[in-house]
């Protein structure tokens, strides 16, 4: 139920709507719950609404954290 997926915003529309792309699938969603989202940003999509903007730098940092944990154990 709380499942949500990261999708890329490809087009901004009227009334806080936007078109997103998920592996080639385009869908209209609402950006009414988030501020400052632009084309190219990734958002977390849940039941047709973006809940949060995905922070690309933080995602990189988390991936680096995985790699360092794995390296230390090796």
């Amino acid at each position, binding site marked *: 139920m709380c499942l*949500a997926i990261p999708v890329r915003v490809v087009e901004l529309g009227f009334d806080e709507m936007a078109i997103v792309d998920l592996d080639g699938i385009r869908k209209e969603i609402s950006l009414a719950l988030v501020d400052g989202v632009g084309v190219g940003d990734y958002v*977390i999509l849940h039941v047709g609404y973006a*809940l949060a903007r995905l*922070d690309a730098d933080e995602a990189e940092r988390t991936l680096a954290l*995985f790699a360092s944990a794995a390296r230390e154990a090796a």
Partner: protein
Amino acid sequence: MKYIDEFRDGELALGIAAAIAAEADPGRSYNLMEFCGGHTHAISRYGVTDLLPPAVRMIHGPGCPVCVLPIGRIDLAIRLALDQGVIVASYGDCLRVPASDNLSLLKAKARGGDVRMVYSPADALKIAAANPEREVVFLAIGFETTTPPTALVIKEAARAEVTNFSVLCNHVLTPAAITNILESPEVRRLGTLPLDGFIGPAHVSTVIGSRPYEFFAEEYAKPVVIAGFEPLDVMQAILMLVRQINDGRAEVENEFTRAVTRDGNLKAQALVSDVFELRRSFEWRGLGMVPYSALRIREAYGAFDAERRFRLETRSVADNKACECGAILRGVKHPRDCKVFGTVCTPESPIGSCMVSSEGACAAYYSYGRFREIPIVAGAPA
């Protein structure tokens, strides 16, 4: 897909598993509850349990809204569809939950009720616009993730002065459920449910932030690590919990920093508090009546509240006697402890709610893990 595939990398998973095995003390036990059904699903689907050392035990929590919705609330929606000719719209999972009289919303549809599956609450409002002569009720369920979209749709209905649309609100709150578990006799008095830490919700936390969990770390001395729903997120969170427990720390840490901040989504929070207020008490399957654990629609939006509009009163209905969903949702029993698991109760024909949603512990075990307990013995071909 970006931000999904790299968080499912098998090589890295083995590396994190090695780190967990190296750091977990085999002489002690780490009893970790993943609150969310989303985590339960990821743990089962990707076989995370098989990568953990014996000292680390995962306990499945009640964070599956379909699972905790009590029968009495679904009965209300079924009666609206069958007796009052209302169009009832809801999310797919809700339609299959077993209710009274051997019915579910899907079976009510088969009996002629107008029940419709929607992806978004906005779709329910569209149904109302397309059917001005009919009453349309959206059966709203979900934790803090799903509540802001419902709030937006109610505000939109008010703005557009829609007169045939209302919401049967069953939105529930995560922190209240965690408190209920920490205060349960099994945890506090009997000691039958040892709990050493929590994996905190992913998408709920994008909305409420990490701050609400600080109370659990401080008051109950339980470490909490908020984690994303991908398998590597879960494993990293387990590693972070093992480290906290080893150090004797009880802090709120955030593994899901790519989407969760301490404050959360303030815009969504403001919308929710504009439209909803706390209920004094609400019934949860498994947990019983939990104080201040759910939301109702404020008086100002009362015209869109199906409970007011149709003068609904909820009756408390007991679960099927053979079903162990209640104990499973509290973490005190395991799906394999249930007699009807996988025999009478299957995802195709569920007896209990935990077998309905893919996030339910029973459905997750049935789909991905049920063969693990059955030894495979090679025999001579007949």
